[in-house]
């Protein structure tokens, strides 16, 4: 009995001599919003195509709601928004929606209500050719929501959108997840998925390098916290010697510490009393965590 929205086990796909997807395995739970992160060419789109049954994996197994990918049952339960889709320019938003509703065997009239949900009610009779990029992307999302799919796959849905459109996009995604649909969205903009997803799966060169909540990833990465202590031109040298950090820009000292040592180090800084004017505590950013897991972490030299 395997009724998970999506279950992947040791999936492999090779193109010529390139291992595009290399033994990737993870499960999705109902109602989860999961981000599939990875740099360009990490294998995200290839993985999505295999989940849709458009590409056949060379090894491993995929199951969509217990059915093989590409089967009628899997396709009926899955919706997809490809990266950079361009609907025919001569058609109106309404016509595009009716078309996909018919393809999915759903009621075209009901599908039109979705245009309202993505904020395209006024533009429904206009041609897609006259739509802005944000509107086209929202039309793509509306199309993906036809017939309440149980698994929604979105490939780079927010690339090229302005911040407000992005926010609206994620609000809609949140609403869908609340109705029990599972969402897997790929992205390389980590900062924007931070608060918008329940879990992050990171691919690097086809391999799964991390899978967990943001807090878990933070903990596992054990990246140092950066403390920036600001004194004055006279006191900076003394601060540096007493704390053991590096001087930067004449007045400040920078030091790194393990997450567990944070409080102790702050106590050390507080003990310096009036030598210190200000302290900045910077936890590792998502980009740092991402760099760490994708093996591109060449910075963070420990010495000055």
């Amino acid at each position, binding site marked *: 009995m395997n009724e998970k929205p999506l279950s992947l086990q040791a999936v492999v796909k090779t193109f010529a001599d390139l291992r595009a997807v290399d033994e990737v395995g993870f499960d999705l739970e109902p109602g989860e919003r999961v981000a599939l992160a990875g740099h360009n060419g990490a294998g995200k789109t290839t993985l999505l*195509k295999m989940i849709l049954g*458009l590409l056949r994996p060379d090894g491993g197994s995929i199951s969509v709601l217990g059915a093989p990918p590409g089967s009628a049952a899997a396709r009926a339960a899955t919706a*997809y928004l490809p990266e950079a889709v361009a609907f025919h320019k001569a*058609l109106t938003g309404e*016509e595009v929606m009716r*078309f*996909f509703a018919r*393809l999915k*065997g759903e009621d075209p009239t009901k599908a039109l209500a979705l245009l309202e949900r993505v904020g395209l009610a006024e533009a429904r009779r206009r041609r897609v050719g006259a739509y802005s990029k944000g509107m086209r992307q929202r039309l793509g999302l509306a199309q993906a929501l036809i017939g309440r799919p149980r698994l929604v796959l979105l490939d780079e849905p927010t690339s090229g959108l302005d911040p407000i459109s992005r926010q609206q996009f994620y609000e809609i995604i949140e609403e869908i997840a609340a109705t029990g649909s599972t969402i897997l969205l790929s992205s390389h903009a980590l900062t924007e998925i931070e608060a918008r997803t329940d879990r992050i799966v990171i691919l690097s060169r086809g391999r799964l390098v991390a899978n967990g909540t943001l807090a878990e990833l933070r903990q596992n990465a054990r990246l140092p916290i950066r403390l920036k202590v600001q004194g004055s031109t006279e006191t900076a040298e003394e601060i540096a010697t007493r704390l053991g950090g590096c001087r930067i820009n004449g007045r400040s000292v920078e030091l790194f510490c393990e997450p567990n040592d944070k409080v102790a180090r702050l106590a050390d800084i507080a003990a310096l009393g009036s030598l210190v004017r200000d302290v900045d505590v910077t936890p590792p950013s998502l980009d740092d965590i991402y760099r760490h897991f994708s093996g591109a972490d060449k910075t963070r030299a420990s010495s000055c």
Partner: protein
Amino acid sequence: MLSRVFAVTGQEIRIGLRNRWILLSALILAAFSLALALLGSAPAGTLGVDRMTITVASLATLSVYLVPLIALLLAFDAVSGEIDRGTLLLIFSCPISRGEFLAGKALGHLFVLSLALVVGYGATAALLFALGSGSAQSLMDFARLVATSALLGFAFLTLGYLLSALSRQTSTAAALAIGVWLVMVVLYDLALLGILVADTSNTFAGMVLPWAILANPADAFRLFNLAALGASDLVGGMAGISDTLPFPPEAALLSLLVFAAVMLTLATAIVRRLTP
């Protein structure tokens, strides 16, 4: 299943109407056929043949050139254009089979082409009939011309899908379509004529030529229409051989159908294997 096929069909018809494909094709067909009808048949009166029948014979020759071109231009981006736009990925992730997708396209394009033919040639037929130069029989000739032109168009539509699926790029598919049109409609006949002239033993004319004509939908179409009109005496040329053929002229129609079926099967097989 049918609702999905018709969804694609409806989409193609809508696009054909919207981007004025139908209008443009109908105008071209009407302009050429009116020119042929009004100017080309002026001296025919002395032959004692219905002016409209003469026009149909001229139009059959016109169709050989125009209809394959219109069909190829309609079909060349059926697959590659959807790949370029990224919509094929989306369509194939929906519960529609690849065969249903192509069938829907073919039906839609056939409708678009037929509408253009009916309007374009119909305008000429209506004008000639109104001028009193036609009979009920010649109207039938017109109807047969329109129907067989649609069949000819269908054969070239399916060929266009095959090219589109093979090339996967719209620009390549467009170039291929023009090349194929040139070869099948213009150069093929020239080559046959060339061989016919060079061949002194007469074996080519007897053994190969009839089948070579049958194999090319454009020639098969012309053969059937001229034979059906009994117009070989009027027009002469290649139509003259229809009396000496080793098969009835109706076989030419069958050949058009077989050609379309083979092309559609091949195109479907390639689209099935394609990763959008």
